[in-house]
């Protein structure tokens, strides 16, 4: 196709927007609402993933060492645990350190009572560690349990299982919501533009008779849909930004209330600006262009 023809088709696309003002406005509104909903579903999904990730990071595994294990053996055990790829932040919490911490937390009366009856330090040496991939927590703790000198391994496996299930369900629900919204938007857009395409069916029919290719007929509609999609995504982006920043300010302002669940730790809008902008523009242009093009298909079969 020649550049002059392409320019002509682009001009026709822009003319179409103006000629079908009402339809254009209807498509714009539908796209705007859809994009805001899809955008929020994705933003909530990303942030929930982060919040769950934070909770996971905080879940700690405690490895209790047997009483009769020598200091050298404890050091060997530490090396063995460190070598497991799924382990991070391994720290030895010695029995002396544990006793000191316990004593510090006691009142003077409690301390006297304790020292009166307990001669030897009754606390064990323990390792505290974090698990990188919570889905492999059971395998990792079982492996540690087989090491010589390990008395027991205490891990929040039930909590981990709940988190894993929650994350999986949430991921599926988020994907389903986004797909459903995109599909619904495509259907509504193609139906909205169907009326304007129907009004131009004569034009399309004549184009077919004089030898226009399907792409030649589709390009102006495609451009029309894409421009409307880009305009809608620009507005949706602004609305999302202000709404998200409002929610962000509330969640980050009260640590006591939201910090417990790690909700204060969500991403700031600015940190997601580039991917969110690109996603909105691409989604808007895609849904607008494809939705509009679908409507032309029926009239091309001449």
């Amino acid at each position, binding site marked *: *196709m*020649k550049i*002059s*023809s392409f320019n*002509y088709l682009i001009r026709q696309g822009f003319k179409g927007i103006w*000629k079908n003002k009402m339809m254009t406005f209807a498509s714009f509104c539908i796209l705007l609402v859809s994009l805001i909903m899809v955008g929020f579903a994705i933003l909530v999904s990303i942030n929930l993933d982060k919040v769950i990730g934070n909770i996971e990071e905080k879940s700690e595994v405690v490895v209790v060492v047997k009483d009769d294990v020598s200091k050298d053996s404890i050091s060997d055990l530490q090396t063995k645990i460190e070598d497991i790829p799924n382990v991070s932040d391994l720290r030895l919490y010695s029995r002396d350190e544990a006793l000191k911490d316990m004593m510090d937390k006691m009142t003077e009366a409690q301390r006297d009572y304790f020292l009166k009856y307990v001669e030897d330090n009754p606390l064990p040496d323990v390792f505290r560690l974090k698990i990188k991939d919570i889905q492999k927590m059971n395998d990792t703790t079982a492996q540690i349990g087989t090491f010589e000198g390990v008395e027991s391994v205490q891990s929040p496996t039930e909590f981990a299982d709940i988190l894993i299930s929650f994350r999986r369900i949430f991921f599926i629900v988020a994907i389903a919501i986004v797909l459903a919204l995109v599909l619904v938007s495509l259907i509504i857009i193609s139906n909205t533009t169907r009326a304007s395409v129907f009004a131009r069916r*004569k*034009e399309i*029919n*004549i*184009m*077919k*008779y*004089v*030898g*226009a*290719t399907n792409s*030649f007929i589709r390009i102006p509609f495609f451009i029309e849909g894409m421009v409307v999609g880009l305009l809608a995504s620009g507005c949706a982006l602004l609305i999302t930004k202000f709404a998200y920043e409002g929610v962000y300010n509330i969640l980050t302002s009260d640590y006591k209330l939201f910090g417990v669940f790690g909700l204060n730790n969500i991403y700031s809008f600015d940190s997601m600006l580039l991917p969110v902008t690109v996603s909105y523009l691409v989604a808007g242009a895609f849904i607008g262009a494809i939705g509009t093009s679908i409507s032309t298909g029926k009239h091309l079969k*001449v």
Partner: protein
Amino acid sequence: MVEFRDVSVTYSSGVDALNKVNLKINDGDFAFVVGPSGAGKSTLIKLILKEIDASTGTVLVNGFNLRKLRRKKVPALRRTIGVVFQDFRLIPTMTVYENIAFVLRVIDAPAKYIRSRVPYVISLVGLSKKAKSYPTELSGGEQQRVALARALVNDPQLIIADEPTGNIDPELSYEIVELLKGINECGTTILMVTHEHDLVRYFGGRIININKGSIQFDEVIGGSNEN
């Protein structure tokens, strides 16, 4: 050149629209296709434009074997054919100039060629002064002349005129056929479907009479205008 070899068309409703039709229209011919409603005239045109496919037989148009022609290549076939419809089918939001130029844009013609060719064709049909008018501002006869100019602008090998005089005053009908005759004299093949027997008798020439899906009569007769 248009050639039908044993062409039959049966629609999905079971109606036999054409029955083993054999027909040859050579380059440069002018032929009237006549016949009553439902005789198969529209089916004949639809076959030539590859709007429909023959149930059996072969259709050859301007070097294209339509049985073998893929959907993707249909625009190439249609670019060799100009079509004039009874209801003009002009785009109401475009001026006379734009309605005609639009055909050349479709075939990706250079802008410079469009700027010189379109005014020339408009002058051929005598509408130079109406180039900036919209179809709704023109009479029926003028609209049909625009449609004729549109069919002519990309210099097609064949022009199909489907009842081109059906929606215009009788006296203007002669003018339209005169224009078609003039185009034919320049070498373009013309196939004109009509109901108007007076017009056919007046101009004469090759007459193809279709009835009940078969060709009843295909001969050259002298016109009364020759007397």
